[in-house]
C-alpha cells in the first residue's frame, strides 16, 4: 500500500470483488422464483395454413398462429430479458425427432409492461416450417411455447408450456 499503483490496484480489485458478490447475492435472492411465478399461456394454436410446397427437394410449410400469453411473472430484478419462442415438433421416417423454431421474440426487462403480455392473432411465422427432406405432408405437428430466462448474473434456465395444454394439427396430404 506504499505506492499509488498498489493502492489503485487494491481499490479496483476490491471493487470488482464486491460487485461480483453483489451480483451473486442478487442471483441467490431469486432462487425458487419460478415455483410461484409462472407465465400464463392462454392460447397457442394454428390459425391458418398458408402453403405447403416443395422447394428443390425440401418441403416447406408457411402458417400463422394465435398466441395469448402473459410473460410478466417470469421477470424479476435479476432478469435481463426473456427469449420467447414457438417450437414446432414432428416426426418423420428419417428423423424420429424434429424441432424447429417458427417464431421468436425478445422481451427485455426494460420494456413497458404492455410488451410483456403477448396477445396476438394470426401471427405469421418468422421462419418457415422446413423439413430436411420431403416428408412434411400428412405429419402431425405440435406447437409449444418455450422461453429462455437470461439473467444478469447466474444460470440460464428454460421454461415451457405444459405439455397437456399444447395444440397439434395435421398437415395436408397434398401440396397446397
Amino acid at each position, binding site marked *: 500500500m506504499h505506492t499509488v499503483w498498489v493502492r489503485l490496484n487494491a481499490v479496483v480489485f476490491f471493487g470488482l470483488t464486491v460487485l461480483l458478490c453483489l451480483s451473486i447475492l442478487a442471483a441467490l435472492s431469486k432462487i425458487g422464483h419460478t415455483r410461484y411465478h409462472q407465465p400464463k399461456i392462454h392460447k397457442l394454436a394454428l390459425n391458418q395454413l398458408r402453403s405447403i410446397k416443395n422447394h428443390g427437394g425440401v418441403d416447406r410449410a408457411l402458417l400463422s398462429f394465435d398466441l395469448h400469453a402473459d410473460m410478466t411473472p417470469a421477470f424479476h430484478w435479476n432478469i435481463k430479458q426473456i427469449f420467447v419462442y414457438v417450437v414446432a415438433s414432428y416426426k418423420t421416417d428419417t428423423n424420429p425427432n424434429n424441432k424447429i423454431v417458427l417464431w421468436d421474440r425478445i422481451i427485455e426487462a426494460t420494456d413497458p409492461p404492455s410488451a410483456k403480455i403477448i396477445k396476438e392473432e394470426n401471427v405469421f411465422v418468422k421462419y418457415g416450417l422446413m423439413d430436411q427432406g420431403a416428408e412434411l405432408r400428412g405429419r402431425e405437428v405440435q406447437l409449444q411455447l418455450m422461453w429462455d430466462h437470461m*439473467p444478469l448474473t447466474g444460470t440460464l434456465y428454460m421454461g415451457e408450456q405444459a405439455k397437456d395444454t399444447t395444440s397439434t394439427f395435421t398437415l395436408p396430404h397434398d401440396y397446397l
Partner: protein
Amino acid sequence: MIKDMIDKQVIELKKLWANKRMLTFQLLNLAMIVFSALMIWKGLMFVTKVSVLLYWRFSRRIDCLFDDEMGWVDHNGRMSWRKYMLRCMLPLEDRLVSESPVVVVLSGSMEPAFQRGDILFLNNSVEKVDVGDVVVFKIKDRDIPIVHRILKVHQKPDGHVELLTKGDNNRVDDRGLYAPGQLWLEREDILGKAVGTLRYVGMVTIALNDYPVLKYVLVGMMGLFVLTSKEG
C-alpha cells in the same frame, strides 16, 4: 504530482541500471511474477476448468497482432524487449480459445441477451442440446468460436443430431458462417452450452479490448513498477 512520480521512476531506473546486481534481482523478480501468474493461470484451467476465452473479435485481433505487418519486429527482424514482453503475454489468451469454459462476449450478435463484456460460463458435459439453447460452436478450420442460439434440431434414428443456429440479433441463420457446403452443425462442433452469465464484471476486458493502447500502458506500467519497486 504525476510529473513527480515519473521523475521518481526515472531516478529509480537510473539507479537500478548502475547497480547490476540489483538489476538482475529485479528482473528475476519480474520473471517470477510473470511465471507465477502463468502458473496460477494454467493451474486454474486444470483444476477448475475455468479460464477466460476471448471471443472472436479479440482472437481476430490477436491473429493480426502476430502478423509482422503490425510492426512486432523491426526491419532487422528483431523485436524490442518491450514488445517481446507483450508478445509473451498475448499467447496466453490465444491458446485458451478452444479449451476454456468461460467466454467474454465481444460481439453484438446476441444482443440484447449478451452484450459485449458479459461473461458466459459454458458446460460441455451436457449430452443433449435442444432447440432454444445458447451454444458456443466452432467451424472446422476456423479458430473463431461463435455464441449463438439453436434454431433447428433434426434427430436421426441413431440419436445423433443435426443443428442449425442463429444469432438473436442477426437477420438470417448461420449457414453463411459455416464452412462452404456445410448445411448443419453436429454435436462435435459444439464447444459447450451456455449455462450461466455474469454482467458488468467483464467490462474491464472490453475496455482493454476497445483501447489496445490501454493494455500496453497497463502492462508497461506493471513492468516498470515491478522493476523499480523495492520490498516495502
